[in-house]
C-alpha cells in the first residue's frame, strides 16, 4: 500500500505575494485599492481647496430657492415663483415626455422602414435604403436644428390665418393650426361624468386583452381560428363612443381659435418639442430599421418555406412564424436604441425645449452658479432613467427569450 504524503508545507515568504498565483491577485487588488484611495485624496483635496479659494461650498439648498424663470412647456403647474427643485421636476417630466413620444414613433417608423427595406418592390426598397443611410450618417443635432428651422421658418405666422384672403388655413375641419409659434391642437374639457367614459374606455381595453386570450385558448384547445383584428378595433372604439353619446357628451373639445395676434384655447405644442420629437424619432428610426431588417434576415429561409409548406398565407407566415422569432433578435438592440433616445433627448437644450438639461443643467446652473451640484444631480437623474429603462426592458426581453429546456 502506498501512502500519499502530505505535500511539503511551504513556509510563507514575502516573495510569494508576487510570484504565487494564489496570493498575487490579492496583492494586485490591494495595490489597486491603495491607488483608488490615493486618487480620491488627490481629487478631493483639489476640490476642497478650489472651492475654499472660490468661496463656495457644496450644498443642495438652492433646490428650495425661488427659480425666477419661466418654462414655456410645462406638464405640471409651474411659474417663476416656484423653486428650482420644482423646475427640475418639470424638466424631468419634459424629458420623459419627449423620450416616450420619441420611442413610440421611432419604433413605428423603424419597423415600417425595416420591413419595407425587404420589400420585393425595387423603388420602395431603394427609397428606404436612402432614408436609412441619410439619417444614420448625419449627426442628430443637425437633424434637430433642420427640423426646428422648418418649424420656425417654413410654417405660417398666426396672422397669416386672419382675414378673408388668409394665406394659411387650419387642418382637419379647423381643429389643428400649424404656426411658427407651435402647433395648436384641440384640448379635451373634462365635464361631469367624463370619468365614466374614461372608465368604459379602460374597461374595453382590458376587454380586448381578455378577448384575445379567449381567441388564443380557442385556437390551442379546439383548433378554431377566431378573428381577432376587427373585434379588437370595434372593442376599442364602440363602447367609449357609446358611453359618450349615452351620457350626453361629457367630454368636449376646446378648439384653438385665432384671437388677437395669436391662437387661444386648445393645447399648444411648441416647435421645439416637435423638432426634438421628430428628429429623434426619424434618426433613431433609421437605426431601428436596420435592427429590424437584420432580425428578419436572421431567421433562416427554411422557416418561411416550412410555414409555406404547411399552407399558411404570406401574411400569416410573417405574423405567426417570422416576427415572433425575429423579435428575439430585435429586442436587445432595441433596448439600447431606447436608451439612446433618452440620452439624446438632452440635446433639447439646442432648441430651447426645457427638459432636464435645459432647466437643471441650463438656467438653474447659470443662475445659482452651483455647477458641481447641478451637474451631479443631472447625471444622477439620467443614470436612474437609463437603469430603469434597461431593467424593465430586460424583464421583457427575458420573457420573450427562447425558453431552453
Amino acid at each position, binding site marked *: 500500500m502506498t501512502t500519499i504524503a502530505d505535500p511539503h508545507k511551504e513556509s510563507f515568504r514575502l516573495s510569494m505575494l508576487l510570484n504565487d498565483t494564489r496570493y498575487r491577485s490579492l496583492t494586485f*487588488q490591494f495595490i489597486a485599492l491603495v491607488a483608488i*484611495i490615493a486618487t480620491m485624496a488627490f481629487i478631493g483635496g483639489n476640490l*476642497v481647496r478650489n472651492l475654499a479659494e472660490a468661496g463656495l461650498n457644496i450644498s443642495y439648498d438652492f433646490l428650495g430657492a425661488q427659480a425666477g424663470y419661466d418654462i414655456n412647456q410645462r406638464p405640471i403647474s409651474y411659474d417663476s415663483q416656484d423653486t428650482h427643485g420644482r423646475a427640475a421636476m418639470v424638466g424631468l417630466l419634459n424629458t420623459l415626455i419627449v423620450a416616450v413620444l420619441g420611442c413610440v414613433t421611432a419604433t413605428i417608423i423603424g419597423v415600417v422602414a425595416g420591413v419595407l427595406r425587404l420589400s420585393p418592390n425595387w423603388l420602395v426598397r431603394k427609397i428606404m435604403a436612402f432614408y436609412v*443611410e441619410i439619417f444614420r450618417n448625419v449627426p442628430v443635432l443637425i437633424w434637430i436644428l433642420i427640423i426646428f428651422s422648418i418649424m420656425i421658418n417654413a410654417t405660417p405666422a398666426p396672422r397669416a390665418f386672419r382675414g378673408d384672403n388668409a394665406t394659411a388655413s387650419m387642418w382637419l375641419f379647423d381643429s389643428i393650426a400649424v404656426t411658427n409659434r407651435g402647433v395648436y391642437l384641440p384640448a379635451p374639457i373634462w365635464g361631469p361624468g367624463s370619468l365614466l367614459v374614461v372608465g368604459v374606455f379602460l374597461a374595453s381595453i382590458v376587454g380586448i386583452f381578455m378577448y384575445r386570450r379567449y381567441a388564443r385558448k380557442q385556437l390551442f384547445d379546439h383548433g378554431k381560428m377566431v378573428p381577432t383584428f376587427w373585434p379588437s378595433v370595434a372593442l376599442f372604439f364602440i363602447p367609449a363612443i357609446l358611453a359618450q353619446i349615452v351620457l350626453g357628451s361629457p367630454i368636449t373639445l376646446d378648439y384653438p381659435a385665432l384671437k388677437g395676434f395669436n391662437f387661444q384655447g386648445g393645447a399648444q405644442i411648441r416647435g421645439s418639442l416637435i423638432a426634438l420629437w421628430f428628429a429623434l424619432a426619424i434618426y433613431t428610426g433609421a437605426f431601428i430599421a436596420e435592427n429590424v431588417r437584420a432580425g428578419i434576415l436572421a431567421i433562416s429561409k427554411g422557416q418561411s418555406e416550412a410555414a409555406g409548406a404547411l399552407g399558411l398565407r404570406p401574411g400569416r407566415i410573417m405574423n405567426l412564424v417570422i416576427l415572433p422569432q425575429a423579435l428575439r433578435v430585435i429586442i436587445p438592440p432595441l433596448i439600447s436604441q431606447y436608451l439612446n433616445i433618452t440620452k439624446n433627448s438632452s440635446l433639447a437644450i439646442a432648441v430651447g425645449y426645457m427638459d432636464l438639461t435645459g432647466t437643471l443643467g441650463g438656467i438653474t446652473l447659470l443662475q445659482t452658479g452651483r455647477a458641481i451640484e447641478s451637474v451631479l444631480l443631472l447625471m444622477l437623474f439620467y443614470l436612474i432613467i437609463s437603469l430603469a429603462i434597461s431593467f424593465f426592458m430586460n424583464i421583457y426581453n427575458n420573457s420573450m427569450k427562447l425558453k431552453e429546456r
Partner: protein
Amino acid sequence: MSDTHAQTVAFVRETQIPPSPPPVTEAGAVKWVRENLFSGVFNTVLTLVAIYFVARFAVFVFPWFYNGVWEASSRKECLDILDGATGACFAVLVDRWDHLVFGFKYPPDGYWRILVAFILLVVAAAPALFASLPRKLLFFTAFYPFLAFWLIWGGSLWFPLTILGLIIATVLVFRLISAQIPVNFRQIVSAVIGGICGIGLAYLLFIGAKELVFIANSVGTEGAIATIAYGVFWVMAVFAFVFCVPMGIFVGYAIYNSFEDGGLVSIVASLLFAYVAFSFLLAPIWMALNSVVPIELEAVASRDMGGFMLNMLLGTICVSLSVPLGILLALGRQSPMPLIKGVCVVFIEFIRGVPLITLLFVANVMLAYFLPPESNFDLILRVIIMITLFSAAYIAEVIRGGLAALPKGQYEAADSLGLNYNQATRLIILPQALKISIPGIVNVAVGLFKDTTLVSIISMFDLVGMIRGPIQNSTEWTSVYWEVYGFGALLFFVVCYSISQYSQWLERQLNTSHH
C-alpha cells in the same frame, strides 16, 4: 429508304428553328418593371405612392438647386438676384467657406498646414486600414501624431520631436534593463530603484493620508450624508496612514525581487526615467535644439480651432485614444479580481448611463475644480479627456463582446501552452477578439464622430457652432438655414458613409469562417 421517304413527304426541315424571342412583356426592361414594380395590386399602389412622393420632392428641390445663387455678399443680395423665384443661396458657402472648414480664428495663411495634416492623415491611416499595404508604412503612422501636432498647433518642430525622442529613449531604457545588462548589475539597479520607489510611495501615501484628514475635516459632520462621507474619508485616511510604510517596503522589495526576470524593475525604471525626462529634460532640450536650428510655424492656441476641422480633430484624437483605454477596461471587466472588475463595471455603466452632453458640462464647468489650481488645461483638452472616456466605455463593451465570443478552448489552449496572462492576452486572445470587434468599434467611431457636434452646445465653434454662432448671427447671413445645414449634413454624410462602407468591406475581408 430515305429516297422513298423523300418522295412521299413534300418537305423535311433539316435545321432547327432558332428560338423565337420571349414576348415583350417577359423580357428586358418591361419584365424587370413588371416583376419589381408592378407585381401585384399592393405593389402597384406602393410604387405609385412612391413615385408621387419622389416627384413632389424633385419638383420642390430641383429648382432650388438649379436656381441657386453662388455669388452674392449677403442674403438680401441673393433674394434680389433670385427676384422672387425659388432658389438656394449657396453664396453663403462660398463667402464663409473658410469659417465653415477652419473656424474663424485660425490664421488664414496657415490653412495649408491643416490641409497637409489632413492629407498625411489619410496616408498614415492607410496601412492601419488596409492590410495589403506594406507594414513598414506603420512607422509613418507612429510618427504622424507628432507631425500633425506640429502642423496644426504650430510652434517649434523640435518640441514634438523631442517628445518622440524621449519616448524612444524610455523604450530603450526598458529594453536595456529587461534583457541587456548582466544580472549582478541588475540586482544593484533593482535595489536602488526599489529603494527610491518604496520611499517615494510611502511619502505619497503619507501626504494622501494628511490630505484625506483635511478633506474629512472640511466636509464636517452636519447632516447625514456629510457624516457618512466624514467617516469614509477618515477610514481611508487611517488606511493610507497605517499602510504607507508597509506598502513602501513591500513595493520596494517587489521591485528589488524582480531583478532576475527583469520584468517589474524594467517597467518601473522606464517609468521613473520618463518622469524625470519629461519634467526636467524636455524643455531644455527642445529649446536648445530650436535655438541651434530654428524650425518654427506660427503657434495657434487650442481655442482658435474651429469649423469642420475641429470635428475631425476631436474625432480622430478621441477614437485613437479610446481604443487602448477601451481594451484595458474590457480586460478589467473580464478580470477574476473583484475589486478591479468592480471598478471597471461601475465606470463603464456610469458612462453609458449618462448623456455625452452632461460629460461635456463636466469638462466645461466642473473638471477645473478637480485639478490642482495651478494646472491650466484648456477647454479643448478637457473636452478631449471627457469624450475619450465616453467612447472608451462604449468600445470596452464592444470588445467585451469580442472576448466573450471567443471559444473557451482558446483560453485553455493558451494556458496549456504555459503562457502567462500577459502572453496569452497579447498573443492569443486579443488578436482574435479585436478581429471580431472591428465592425463594432467602427460603429462606435462613427457615432463618436457625429457626437463631436455636441461641443457646439458648450460654446465651442465646431461646424455646427460656426453655423449657429458667427454665420447665422451675422447681419449678412441671418436666416440662412437650408444651405448651411445641408452643407454640414453633406460633410458628415460623406465621412460617415465612407467609414461605414469601409467597415462592411473589412467585415467581408475578415470573414474567414466557411458559410
